[in-house]
């Protein structure tokens, strides 16, 4: 009699483990994997940021300002934007004068985030130039918004007019790439908004000439 009961219990334990075993094992594996990933993410975050600065934003700024006489990336500062978010501002000195600042705007495009480095002339608050930093747009279609054909439209204009014609601005979208063109325009507008808010602080952060 007692033997039977013990056997029954063993069977019950077996079936309970069959039911819970997969759940427990999978949970443990996911927890370990998650912890490891969080650790690696934390450990590499600062290095990845500096790699992106050196490999993406640095070269873009170099192309936009070949005559800059400061190290634009090294002198960047983190300022606090209108809603408390951190905005990285890149100062550009030409002939010893703080001539422009660049701010990266990010909007969502067809293939994910779309980043545009947008530069503003400090003297008259006009847009100086733009350069695309992050683009996962469709090659041959959306990717055309990174070509000079599109970006040259943003040279030396009032920031308010630097949006698509459909939004009441002066920029011609690339036909067939409405989403990507809109993303570029939105990213530029985001950067302009940051610039408007941060203008007073920019003057305090970097000396006007040196």
């Amino acid at each position, binding site marked *: 009699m007692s033997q039977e009961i013990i056997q029954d219990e063993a069977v019950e334990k077996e079936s309970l483990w*069959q039911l819970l*075993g*997969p759940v427990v*094992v*999978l949970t443990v*594996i*996911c927890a370990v*994997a998650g912890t*490891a*990933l969080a650790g*690696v*993410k934390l450990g*590499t975050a600062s*290095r*990845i940021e500096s*790699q*992106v600065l*050196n*490999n993406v934003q640095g070269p873009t700024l170099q192309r936009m300002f070949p005559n800059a006489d400061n190290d634009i990336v090294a002198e960047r500062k983190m300022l606090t934007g209108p809603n408390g978010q951190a905005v990285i501002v890149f100062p550009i000195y030409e002939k010893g004068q703080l001539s422009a600042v660049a701010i990266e705007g990010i909007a969502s495009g067809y293939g994910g985030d779309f980043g545009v480095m947008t530069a503003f002339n400090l003297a008259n608050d006009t847009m100086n130039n733009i350069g695309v930093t992050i683009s996962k747009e469709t090659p041959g279609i959306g990717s055309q918004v990174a070509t000079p054909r599109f970006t040259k439209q943003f040279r030396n204009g009032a920031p308010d007019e630097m949006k698509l014609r459909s939004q009441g601005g002066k920029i011609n979208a690339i036909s067939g790439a409405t989403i990507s063109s809109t993303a570029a325009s939105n990213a530029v507008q985001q950067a302009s908004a940051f610039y408007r808010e941060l203008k007073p602080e920019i003057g305090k952060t970097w000396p006007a000439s040196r």
Partner: protein
Amino acid sequence: MSSLLQEFTKGLWREIPPFRLVLGLCPILGVTTKAFNGLGMGLAVVFVLTISNMIISMVRNVIPSKVRIACFIVISASLVVIVELCMQAFTYPLYEQLGIFVPLIVVNCIILGRAEAFAAKNPVLPSIMDGLGMGFGFTISLVFIGSIREIFGTGQWFGLQIMPDFFQPMQIMVQAPGAFIALGLTLAAMNWYSRVSCENRGIKYENAQHGCGSCSACDMCKTVERPSI
């Protein structure tokens, strides 16, 4: 020891992944525009495959068979993300070149294929050797296809000019069709070589054993005497 060595060397020729197992074709077609990209991708796969084989082999007796595929995917996906983050942190230009193919390592058939076919059934050391062998076989294949495409498509090899000046680069080889052409010709050449070497040894090619890595039809094999290729 000799069996460990065998687990390693089988991946280098007899069961070389893209050419014999015909697994992992997506990266071999996608990233091999340059030999260097092939090398980078291959080494990433060596890392992921070896560690995932090792971990899966260590926990193989704990994992219930019902959820084994999910467990294998969690393990290999985590390793791939680790590789991706490290690549971003240390070799950013390579990461930009490989782009979408790094996260796609996780859906590379070789990883899950080796986990299921080998690591889940074998002890840790042979699994590590299997992962290393398969990984390096995959790397060799990627570098080989990458070299063919780079040399004929640009006249360079690992960025060094090796073709004479009068050589006109064939643009098609660095574009998508070139990948299919190079892979197809390589597969054909390997099959032709196997056939010739079988015939030289007096074996009927159709009966030769192609390695069991990509095939689980063991019952069919038992009916015929199968000499090794």
